[in-house]
């Protein structure tokens, strides 16, 4: 049974030397990490980076390098989480345009965090996380319901529209809450654009277990997601509980989005670009696609952060803006490449 199943799935999802790509991805990530600690308002050489990280030197360069470590860690964690969530969301909704940002999941997390700050006095990371997770789940259910309206079920077009409308609706609810509260507004406007620049290692550490839970759920779904790609009926015929797999995997993705948003604010398009790129590299087998996307997502977000810091010197451009400027053209490319009838 297992062998025939593997044969079918193996046929459906072509793999192309994924281990090498995985290795290459890891090398790229290491390079990105080096760039991230070396570049900024002050550019530091390789040797100085090494000194700063291995000794407790008190020099200015060492301090600069060490101050860039938390944001680098955060970029890695958040980038990986968003990319994995993107892969899973695209598989679960069978929608090449699925992305936590496009689907409005981030906006739900933002709205509930605003509600938490304004009405429940939430001021600490654990509370942000609780509200962000609840908001992500709420928005996901809402968008899926709105996107399923009418004939034809949840098509990519309708889901994307439902996500855009939900984002607009949730954003304006946020501003209705924020407008009379200037103090909350001051805090929140920095959080509204996704950024890793205000990273604290303690916060990252706090959210890490939640992200691990989400990652494990997504990883466990990898095989089922492969079978799901054959179509609901075929998958059911092969003994997969289609609904259970969908809900489970989507739950994992929502945990990842919510926790990542609590940490860094809404960052768009990482979950869209990375899966498409990685599918070109390692094929559509989720057992390779998920780890590859995690590595590539971490690399992309780290590099985007570096780009934002270099372009915005002496200030910086928030990473959420950079990913949107890179990501929207990719979104358009996906849309325009697909034959119109399936859109």
């Amino acid at each position: 049974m297992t062998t025939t199943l593997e044969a079918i799935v193996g046929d459906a999802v072509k793999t192309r030397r994924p281990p090498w790509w995985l290795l290459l991805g890891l090398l790229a990530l290491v390079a990105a990490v080096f760039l991230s600690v070396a570049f900024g308002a002050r550019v530091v050489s390789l040797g100085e980076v090494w000194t700063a990280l291995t000794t407790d030197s008190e020099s200015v360069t060492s301090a600069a390098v060490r101050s860039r470590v938390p944001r680098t860690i955060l970029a890695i964690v958040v980038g990986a989480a968003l990319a994995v969530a993107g892969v899973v969301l695209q598989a679960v909704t069978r929608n090449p345009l699925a992305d936590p940002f496009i689907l409005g999941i981030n906006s739900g997390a933002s709205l509930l965090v605003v509600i938490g700050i304004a009405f429940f006095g939430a001021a600490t990371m654990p509370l942000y996380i609780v509200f962000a997770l609840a908001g992500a789940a709420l928005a996901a259910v809402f968008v899926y319901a709105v996107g399923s309206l009418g004939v034809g079920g949840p098509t990519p077009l309708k889901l994307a529209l439902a996500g855009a409308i939900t984002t607009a609706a949730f954003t304006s609810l946020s501003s209705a809450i924020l407008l009379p509260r200037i103090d909350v507004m001051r805090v929140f406007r920095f959080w509204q654009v996704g950024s890793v620049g205000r990273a604290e290692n303690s916060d990252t550490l706090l959210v890490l277990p939640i992200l691990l839970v989400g990652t494990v759920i997504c990883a466990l779904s990898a095989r089922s997601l492969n079978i799901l790609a054959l179509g609901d009926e075929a998958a059911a015929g092969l003994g997969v509980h289609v609904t259970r797999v969908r809900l489970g995997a989507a739950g994992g993705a929502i945990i990842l989005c919510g926790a990542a948003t609590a940490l860094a604010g809404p960052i768009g398009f990482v979950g869209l670009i990375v899966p498409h790129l990685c599918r070109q590299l390692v094929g559509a087998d989720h057992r390779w696609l998920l780890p590859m996307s995690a590595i590539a997502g971490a690399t992309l977000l780290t590099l985007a952060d570096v780009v934002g810091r270099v372009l915005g010197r002496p200030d910086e451009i928030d990473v959420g803006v950079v990913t949107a400027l890179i990501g929207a053209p990719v979104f358009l490319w996906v849309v325009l490449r697909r034959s119109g009838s399936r859109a």
Partner: protein
Amino acid sequence: MSANRTASETVRAVRLRGARRARLIVAGLAIALVALFAGSLAFGDPVYSPADVWRVLTGQFVPGASFIVGELRLPRSVLAVVAGACFGLAGVTFQTMLRNPLASPDIIGITNGANAAALFAIVVLGASGLVVSLGAVVAGVATAALIYALASSGAAVGARLILVGIGIAAMLNSVTAYLLVYANEFDLQRAMRWLNGSLNLATWDGVALVAVPFVVLAPALLLLSRRLSLLRLGEDLAAGLGVPIEPTRRLLVLVAVGLAAFATAATGPILFVAFMAGPIATRLVGHRGSPMVPSALVGALLVLAADLLGQYAFGTRYPVGVVTGALGAPFLIYLLIRTQRTGGSL
């Protein structure tokens, strides 16, 4: 008598009844609009009697009222009505043309272009007034042109128009968010006022900015409305009935975008009016006849009512766009429930 009726007579009778009902509802909407308009002039702090309001409107001098009603409330209410009608018309045009009730210009990128440009003018250039408004108009039209140019090759233009619009909107929104982060306190307030869509600064100049295009573009849209309702049947069928698809669509986009862009320039984006007006109007009058006039009336009513609510219903004075924006989520839920119950498509 009724037993001998032929089928075609029955159909005609039902149609007539529907058309009469639609006319009655349009008349009802118009009366409601006039009443609310009058109310918006009289109500507030202080409240004036209808007689005083009438005297101001007919050009007589009434101490106090001449300024408050004539100079403050009148331009505000006129702007609300005209901008609301513009949003309603633009929204229903896009929704009908793209055959999707979720596809309104404030969702598929056009308003977002205007927003980003206005914020750029306010935060980076330190501009105000007319520069901001003109920037918004130009950027709104340019965004629409870009979306159209990207989406309009090959088949299924409608679907791609929506998706390309969403992508562009997401990009522009992040630019807007970035500009907000780096705005200083003073610019931040002006930027927020713009972004939330407000009538607080209504002047006769602002009214002219949107009224002149309205007078030109709205009749043009009414002339196109027959073709639009044919386009609603689907591109193939419409082409078979002799509608030149591509020119018609281009013209419709141009006119609707013009209306939305000028209205946005005058008031800022009053969110969801374009999105809600069409479905509400269709729900009221049914699919008989053109949805244009009812949608314009519903749009005007929505903005006027939301502005009154925002000014007087809560402890804080909310800008009109926040009130209409907050209606967005409940309206989506209403659409959900209604489609679930009737089982029909949206």
